């Protein structure tokens, strides 16, 4: 069940990645994040959205503004039904890639976020939730 004030986007092509970036930027501005923090969360979102396409054939992104008052933030959920990640610590290591990437997406997204939670089951899919607080 989704809370009021959340929205979801299906991510299947690189055009969708552009859409994700624009959505996240708008939310980050809304939540009052500084320019650097906006840039960080949008970049993290771009990495994770792209990962979903490259490794899982696509997925879903959920956008939320969380918190209240001076502690507001942006929370994004990236969920796919792809092959899953067998070794998460390995996947988080910089430079590790099973594709053509630079291998920075997962670890990089983690560094750019305030909070980073990942669940993954081989054969079932992956769910990543990142939050950037003001």
């Amino acid at each position: 069940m989704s809370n009021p004030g959340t929205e979801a986007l299906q991510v299947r092509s690189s055009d969708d990645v552009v859409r994700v970036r624009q959505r996240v930027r708008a939310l980050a501005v809304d939540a009052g994040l500084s320019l650097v923090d906006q840039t960080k969360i949008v970049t993290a979102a771009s990495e994770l959205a792209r990962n979903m396409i490259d490794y899982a054939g696509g997925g879903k992104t959920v956008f939320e503004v969380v918190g209240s008052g001076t502690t507001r933030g942006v929370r994004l959920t990236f969920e796919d039904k792809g092959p899953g990640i067998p070794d998460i610590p390995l996947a988080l290591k910089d430079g590790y890639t099973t594709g053509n990437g630079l291998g920075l997406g997962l670890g990089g997204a983690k560094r750019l976020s305030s909070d980073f939670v990942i669940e993954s089951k081989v054969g079932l899919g992956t769910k990543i939730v990142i939050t950037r607080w003001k």
Partner: protein
Amino acid sequence: MDRIPILKLGEALLVTIQVDMHDRLATALEEDLTAKIVSAHAKGVLIDISALEIVDSFIGRMLDNIASVSRILDAETVVVGMRPAVAITLVELGLSLTGVKTALNVERGMELIKRRLEAEAASVESGD
């Protein structure tokens, strides 16, 4: 489909990236640049990213590719105009773009390219 225009600026090529790029546009740019470096005998490539609010690993890879290909074709690539927020984010992301030269703006970028050409000319003259 729109393609990003490539301008000739002296002995260099100037590319100004102003849109949020999707994959096809990036691939097209790499192809167009490669072709034009050869056809225009360019010695330098200036990529102006001052309009980019985001540079992710995809764009980073594109810049690295362009720099590598240009080098093989004897042209130097300089990326100019990176925004402070983007630089801070890239470093945190772990993208140091070490294979790419950078400059504050197009003017400085051209100076860099000219200096390299002058250095090369000087070393040719002195018989290195």
